[in-house]
């Protein structure tokens, strides 16, 4: 098998667990080319030091704060050099021969969009032999808690509704083209189910591969960072979001011959900075970019400017391009060409105008500035002029 698998692992203050996961990968991944990308969700310095002890085994991306599983995974996937990307929870231990069957299923099975492994608890109890989605949106991990299955069901390779993001292999391009794990499910839960239905909507299937086995402790991170009430609240909110998007399909698909409706497609384009002569505009937001009312204005301005300038979105946080594309899809904004940077990593020399959104502290750049809320009319005038002239 010639393809490189980029294994993306998200870590938050569990360096030892993560290293254990990586050790198991190194030990049990023999005939497959792979790279490991660890995305750290803002761990303490001492935890980072522990991680660095094995730094030769993986690429480390450090985020300043917890961006949660979905966004951290998107960031990891965007750094993948492999054609295939495999998301793996850091409380997983893989077993001999785990990866080849997964890759084989993705390569050989009909319209395979994603594939997941058999997940066992360290005490050998079955935790997941694929997942199904009930008409009310709840995901069911097949075989969990002693569920009796038809003979051979847990050992077969078969199409399933979804596989959890604990161990999920996809083609990198397919993952990115879908916009990755959707930020409307921040901070967590149901993003893997959404992704699988999303795959199905473009004609690809999620497969369960019963011959690839991994061990999983389950919810080690989420149990630590959230109380039971908080978890329940995220779960309740996100199930509602899932049902808003796919509820009609899920409710009717058992009776009817139905496929989920496609969401608006994302059209990935390379960053616009390729032409050095392009007029570069930075749109800066001190607020997090998320699926709420504070983000659309920045994204709309970015879309309006994209044809006549190089647009860079600058934020306090490190964001994936997946996130921006997904948010634009959510808000119905057609933004294709842009760069996204953490404000500290902006190329300070090559920027001609900064537009700030929300009046929060601005990046210290000595270039002309407009505040969108104060100088919106002026900005619109500028854009109109640029559009009619074809350039700034």
């Amino acid at each position, binding site marked *: 098998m010639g393809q490189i698998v980029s294994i993306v692992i998200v870590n938050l203050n569990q360096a030892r667990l993560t290293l254990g996961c990586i050790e198991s990968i190194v030990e049990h991944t023999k005939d497959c080319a792979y790279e490991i990308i660890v995305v750290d969700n803002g761990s303490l310095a001492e935890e980072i030091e522990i991680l660095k002890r094995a730094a030769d085994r993986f690429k480390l991306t450090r985020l300043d704060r917890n961006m949660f599983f979905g966004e951290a995974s998107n960031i990891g996937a965007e750094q993948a050099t492999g054609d295939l990307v495999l998301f793996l929870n850091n409380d997983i231990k893989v077993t001999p021969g785990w990866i080849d069957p997964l890759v084989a299923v993705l390569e050989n099975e009909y319209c395979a969009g994603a594939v997941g492994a058999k997940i066992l608890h360290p005490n050998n109890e079955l935790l997941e032999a694929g997942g199904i989605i009930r008409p009310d949106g709840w995901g069911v991990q097949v075989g969990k808690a002693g569920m009796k*299955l038809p003979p051979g069901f847990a050992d077969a390779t078969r199409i399933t509704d979804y596989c959890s993001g604990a161990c999920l292999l996809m083609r990198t391009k397919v993952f990115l083209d879908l916009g990755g794990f959707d930020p409307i499910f921040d901070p967590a839960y149901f993003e893997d189910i959404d992704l699988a239905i999303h795959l199905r909507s473009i004609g690809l299937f999620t497969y369960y591969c019963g011959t690839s086995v991994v061990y999983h402790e389950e919810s080690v991170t989420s149990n630590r960072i959230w109380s039971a009430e908080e978890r329940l609240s995220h779960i309740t909110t996100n199930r509602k979001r899932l049902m808003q998007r796919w509820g009609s399909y899920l409710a009717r698909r058992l009776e009817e011959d139905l496929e989920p409706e496609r969401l608006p497609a994302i059209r990935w384009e390379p960053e616009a900075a390729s032409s050095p002569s392009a007029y570069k505009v930075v749109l800066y937001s001190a607020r997090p970019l998320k699926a709420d009312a504070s983000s659309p204005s920045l994204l709309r301005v970015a879309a309006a400017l994209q044809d006549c300038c190089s647009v860079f979105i600058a934020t306090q946080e490190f964001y994936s391009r997946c996130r921006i594309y997904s948010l634009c899809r959510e808000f119905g904004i057609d933004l294709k060409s842009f760069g996204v940077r953490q404000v500290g990593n902006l190329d300070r020399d090559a920027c001609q105008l900064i537009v700030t959104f929300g009046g929060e502290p601005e990046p210290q750049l000595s270039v002309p500035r407009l505040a969108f809320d104060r100088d919106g009319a002026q900005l619109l005038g500028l854009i109109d002029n640029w559009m009619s002239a074809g350039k700034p």
Partner: protein
Amino acid sequence: MSEPASKTSDRETARASAKANLLLALYSHVSHDLEQTRAEADRLRLELGAVRGEFDQTRRHLGEARAEVERVHGQLNQTTNECDRLAVRIAELQQQLDALVNSTSWRITAPIRALTRVIRR
């Protein structure tokens, strides 16, 4: 452009297989749920039996306690009646005593009683 016939048939096969797998897994899930609900119902039935047993026992204890209270109450009534009867009797005797002490004959015979006491010594 429509897909060639073989692709369409592959897709139909995959979709049919997906649906069959979904139905099988849903069946397992619902059976499992049913089994768990049954087990829960059995557990609740047992618990209900135990609670009923406790309830019966408590009711029996309550009956016994009630009988005891009634018995004690009866005794108390009897005792009260006896007290009342004795009080009446005491009053009667007191009256008789008063009448006797205040009677003329009692006073006349007082020296004789005094003399009798001296002689006895």
